[in-house]
């Protein structure tokens, strides 16, 4: 089991490095899943099986799948990948990498200066964690649920498509007539997906009309 800790730790480090250095978003997210699984193995070897299961179910199962769905929804093409390749030259990552290396050395010195101890004295199972969670930490659980509710409402509010408030009245009128003229969802979808790509190439933020057209018509 001690070997499993070192093995999983090495896998986690390598996979996380690959996440940060990939150009393709999907590849990076798949490496992130590998990294999270490796950290789950580390949790298990440290005698924390409950959070190991949570790591697999919530992190890898829910959060990264949400990322993947968003990437698919955004339909990020290969032009973004070329852009990333151009930006990830050594000149751009050398400075932050060196500074982070200095920070890592500082953290390592601070950790090495403390008293040494062994981990994994005993397995802390789900029962103990549940008793602690709903005993002394009950208020924290309530706050976490409130936070999740706030995030739910916030994400729903942000995801709601609405017209830009500063769009002029002619543009708004054009959107409305456009919406009335649409026959069905497939035509609207092709229109929406096809339209912003050429605008994104050179003068994306300056062109208001494609952005306005991108909002959904509210025809309920």
């Amino acid at each position, binding site marked *: 089991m001690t070997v499993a800790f070192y093995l999983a730790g090495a896998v986690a*480090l390598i996979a996380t*490095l690959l996440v940060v250095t990939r150009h393709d978003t999907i590849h990076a997210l798949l490496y992130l899943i590998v990294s999270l699984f490796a*950290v789950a193995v580390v949790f298990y*070897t440290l005698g924390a099986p409950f959070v190991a299961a949570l790591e697999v179910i919530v*992190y890898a199962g829910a959060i990264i799948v949400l*990322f993947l769905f968003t990437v698919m929804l955004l339909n990020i093409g290969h032009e973004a990948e070329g852009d990333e390749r151009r930006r990830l030259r050594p000149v751009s990552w050398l400075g932050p990498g060196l500074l982070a290396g200095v920070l890592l050395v500082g953290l390592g010195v601070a950790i090495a200066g403390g008293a040494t101890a062994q981990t994994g004295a005993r397995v*802390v199972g789900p029962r103990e*964690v549940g008793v602690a969670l709903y005993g002394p930490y009950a208020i924290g659980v309530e706050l976490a649920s409130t936070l999740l509710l706030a995030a739910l409402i916030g994400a729903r509010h942000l995801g709601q498509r609405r017209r830009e408030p500063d769009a002029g009245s002619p543009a708004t009128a054009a959107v409305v007539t456009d919406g009335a003229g649409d026959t069905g969802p497939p035509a609207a979808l092709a229109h929406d997906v096809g339209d912003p790509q050429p605008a994104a190439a050179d003068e994306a933020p300056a062109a208001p009309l494609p952005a306005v057209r991108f909002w959904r018509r509210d025809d309920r």
Partner: protein
Amino acid sequence: MAHVPFEYGLYLAAALFLIGLVGVLVRRNLIFVLASIEIMLNAAGLAFVVAGSRWGQPDGQVMFFFILSMAAAEVAVGLALALLFRRAFGSLDIDQASRMRG
């Protein structure tokens, strides 16, 4: 059940956290920035679990639970913002956010 020194777990957490920090600093794609923030939160949770394992107490795992729920909330709002960002600017390049007006 591994009996590894307490420091090695903290070294692993520190290394993962700094890889995530470099990701936030270097990458310009909003999705990568959010994923790097997830890496950093996960590393912080790992430090809590290592400390909980060191003293054999459930508190570290409880803290990881709270970090997990915060990460879930952050990623939900962050990805909704990424959708809005893409809709407004036509790309996910966070440098374009400097052109925001109001």
